[in-house]
């Protein structure tokens, strides 16, 4: 069955392409320090505002920092935030969703109303409100993005729990005397994995968008950290003199987001061929 999923996924060329781009970025993030030509924080005022050259493939900024090196180190921060916040969101969202779906009734009502209210804050607004409470910085950005992503996971898990709960095999487990915890961890969660994987992949892209957006506004990761959004914010000021400082991280965000959504779409088609069309 798993082989079939992989086979179906490989059939979609654009998704495979997206997957390769993501792998490339992840490798960059891991081995960044080995490949980056310069220290991303190293200032060299004599070398500022440089264009593309063999020394600086993507030029330098106003402080003479190498843009390519900053971009490479930025991959670490941006992908790191994205993975960590989606991981956190998965834990919270799945717990909420399972609790709501499995126990139903008042618990369900309470949790889902709460989720509804979170969803009533459109787009980046929720993340901004959370940062307003917690303050800026790397960890708070992660938390803000995580909470922003919780509602989607909670909803998906809840609906698949509800549809699973009444199936015969869960009834059978219950009749066999399995505990709730056991049923949930051994049966319900594994069975709602497909939609979760798809959603998590799609949300990884969104997480980068939101986190970089916060940093761009000055509410997320702070300079001189080479987070992509923070770089863009800095690049906005240098648009006239060294546009590459903005273009490089912007293009990186676009490619990563695009790739995650291509992979997510591919996974959806591969995991659930019925959903297609």
């Amino acid at each position, binding site marked *: 069955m798993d082989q079939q999923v992989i086979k179906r996924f490989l059939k979609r060329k654009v998704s495979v392409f997206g997957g390769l781009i993501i792998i490339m970025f992840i490798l960059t993030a891991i081995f960044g320090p080995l490949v980056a030509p310069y220290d991303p924080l190293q200032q060299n005022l004599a070398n500022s505002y440089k264009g593309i050259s063999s020394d600086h493939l993507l030029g330098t900024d106003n402080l003479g920092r190498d843009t390519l090196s900053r971009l490479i180190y930025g991959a670490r921060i941006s992908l790191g935030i994205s993975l960590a916040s989606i991981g956190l969101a998965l834990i919270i969202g799945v717990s909420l969703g399972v609790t709501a779906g499995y126990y139903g009734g008042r618990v369900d009502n309470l949790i889902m109303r709460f989720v509804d*209210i979170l969803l*009533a804050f459109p787009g980046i607004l929720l993340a901004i409100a959370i940062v307003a409470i*917690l303050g800026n910085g790397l960890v708070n950005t992660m938390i803000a993005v995580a909470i922003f992503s919780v509602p989607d996971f909670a909803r998906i898990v809840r609906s698949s729990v509800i549809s699973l709960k009444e199936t015969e095999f869960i009834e059978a487990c219950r009749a066999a005397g399995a505990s709730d915890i056991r049923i949930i961890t051994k049966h319900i969660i594994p069975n709602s994995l497909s939609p979760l994987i798809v959603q998590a992949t799609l949300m990884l892209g969104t997480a980068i968008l939101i986190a970089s957006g916060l940093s761009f506004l000055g509410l997320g990761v702070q300079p001189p950290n080479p987070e992509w959004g923070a770089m863009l914010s800095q690049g906005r000021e240098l648009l006239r003199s060294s546009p590459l400082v903005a273009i490089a991280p912007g293009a990186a965000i676009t490619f990563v987001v695009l790739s995650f959504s291509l992979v997510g779409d591919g996974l959806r088609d591969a995991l659930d061929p019925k959903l297609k069309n």
Partner: protein
Amino acid sequence: MLRFIINRIFQVIPVLLGITILVFSMLHLIPGDPARTMVGIEASAEQIEQAREELGLNRPLHEQFFSFVGNAIKGDLGESIRTSLPVTEEILNRLPITINIAIGATIFATFFGMLFGIIAAINHNKFGDGLTMVISLLSVSTPSYFLGLLLMLVFSLHLGWLPTIGISTPIHYILPIVTLGAQAMGLIARMTRSGMLDVLRQDYIRTARAKGLPERVVIYIHAFKNALIPVVTVVGLRFGGLLAGTVLVESVFAVPGIGRFMVEAVLIRDYPVVQGTVLVVAVSFVLINLLVDIIYGLLDPRVRYT
């Protein structure tokens, strides 16, 4: 129909209440003492006490909440710490710019999104289809704060056609509107395309052709109205999202709208302004969605009668 509308309105009330509670609790969720956070570390004990008094933090919690809600309903959102002006007034001064941009972006996104979607559907699996879908995919993935900078780079700095920042003349609106609308345009194009493709396969389209109607009537009236229904929902939901999206776009183009106002307030910890702006945007979002639902009901008789 009336019952449908009333029903929807009643469903919205708890959400509005929840938003208010959440916005109210923002102040109380701040780690440590909000009054101290606000006035700064070097502030004297008196200053902190004064800030606490101004924020009403000395009163019992439930009293604070009810006065917050009561005042909010009356349109009183407190005073800005920085300017000492009423938050409501400050918001109202900036709101028109934000609404103009959001409406402009909605019109831009709807018009071009539907146009591209229809072109793609009519040219299904041909070049026009592929091109429009690539454009829409890119526009969905490009963050607005990057797209805005790119457009500024090309149209303002290189070509010199459009102004860079600010919002003093109508021409200044063009780039913010395009930047904000691009993502929604991509989504609308995709939805219109798949909706049209689906509808064009339906029996009633065959009937319309069998009646001898001209092809443009078949496509732009019979098919389009059916394909429009899901698109309207997206447009509506997007409009609410666009209001939030202005936060980023206003920062790119240094536009003095409500989004920029909110971000500045967060940066300087002007909590009454933060609460006020967040409340206004979230409530508008919910009310717009309510309106969209009702329009959806008006458009599609099937929703009304089931």
